[in-house]
């Protein structure tokens, strides 16, 4: 399928006029990403956002035996969103292609151009980003709560409790 056809299938941009999607493809060129490629890495400067058109990515923390898969991001979902509005703050997780994938990558400047033009894509993207971020936070906090509950029941609960309390309150 052509990139425009792929875009038209994504619920994220449902309601955005096709002319706006065509304009998006003029300013954000589709990029092919081979399976196992590290698209985003922890500590990288974060100044762009990526829309997944095909394939998928694993969002991870840690490496090797300590790697934790936090989320799977597939077609119609967004990567890099946490850094987009935090003014080049470093990435806090990595994204690895789990399949050959096609993405649209654009920086904040490109998004600003679309905003100035009155294009409907930035607003659709903002809504998708809000819901993606909220879901990831909810899932991670839920998981952390579960782990802390277990850790606090362990043989030496106080050290874990005090340490995590510091982390939560700093």
């Amino acid at each position, binding site marked *: 399928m052509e990139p425009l056809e792929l875009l038209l299938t994504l619920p994220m941009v449902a309601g955005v006029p096709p002319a706006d999607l065509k304009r998006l493809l003029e300013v954000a060129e589709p990029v092919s990403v081979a399976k196992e490629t590290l698209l985003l890495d922890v500590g990288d400067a974060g100044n762009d956002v990526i829309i997944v058109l095909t394939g998928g990515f694993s969002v991870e923390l840690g490496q090797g035996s300590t790697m934790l898969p936090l989320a799977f991001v597939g077609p119609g979902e967004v990567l890099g969103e946490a850094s987009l*509005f935090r003014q080049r703050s470093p990435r806090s997780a990595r994204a690895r292609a789990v399949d050959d994938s096609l993405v649209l990558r654009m920086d904040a400047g490109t998004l600003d151009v679309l905003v100035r033009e009155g294009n409907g894509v930035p607003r659709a993207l*903002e*809504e998708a980003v809000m819901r993606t971020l*909220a879901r990831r936070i*909810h899932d*991670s906090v839920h998981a*952390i709560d579960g782990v802390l509950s*277990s850790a606090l029941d362990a043989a030496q609960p106080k050290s874990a409790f005090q340490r995590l309390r510091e982390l939560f309150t700093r």
Partner: protein
Amino acid sequence: MNSMAIIRGLARSPHFAGIPTEVLHGISMHASLQKMSPGEPIGTRLQPSDAVWLIADGRVEVRRLQGYEGRRLEVALSILKPGMMFGHVSLLSEQPRTATFVAASPGALLRFDRKSFSSLLADRQQAGAAFRRAVILALGNQLHAVNQLLDLFIQDSGDEIESRRELLRAALDGAVQT
């Protein structure tokens, strides 16, 4: 005047830094001022979220359910300060709250009920754009903090956390599937 108090509360928040007063005024039309007293519950864990709050003045305690010596307790794990937003994750993810929020001091909150919050998110004017950016900024900061915490779990060399790593992995796997 409540309207001026709401605008001042918005202006205090780093999420709305640099937003012109006339735009803050547009946002303030969607908010109400809610006074709080110490110990007063604001939102309860596992209840569906019906509003988003921004702290204009005072502090709010976040209580989470934890296991401790075989008992299950709600433990105060963090304090939210003026300018911070809460309730938005639950409302946006359409999941019940994972924490209980209790007033830790006298103060005032800016309350956006579900309808007002949705209206602002859909607003095509400058007020809507500024509000969406503020919410994304709050969410981005929060996810960054959560990832840092998870990273500390992973890097921790202590036996106690080490022994919990598989639990963490399992919990995250479960969370991702839901």
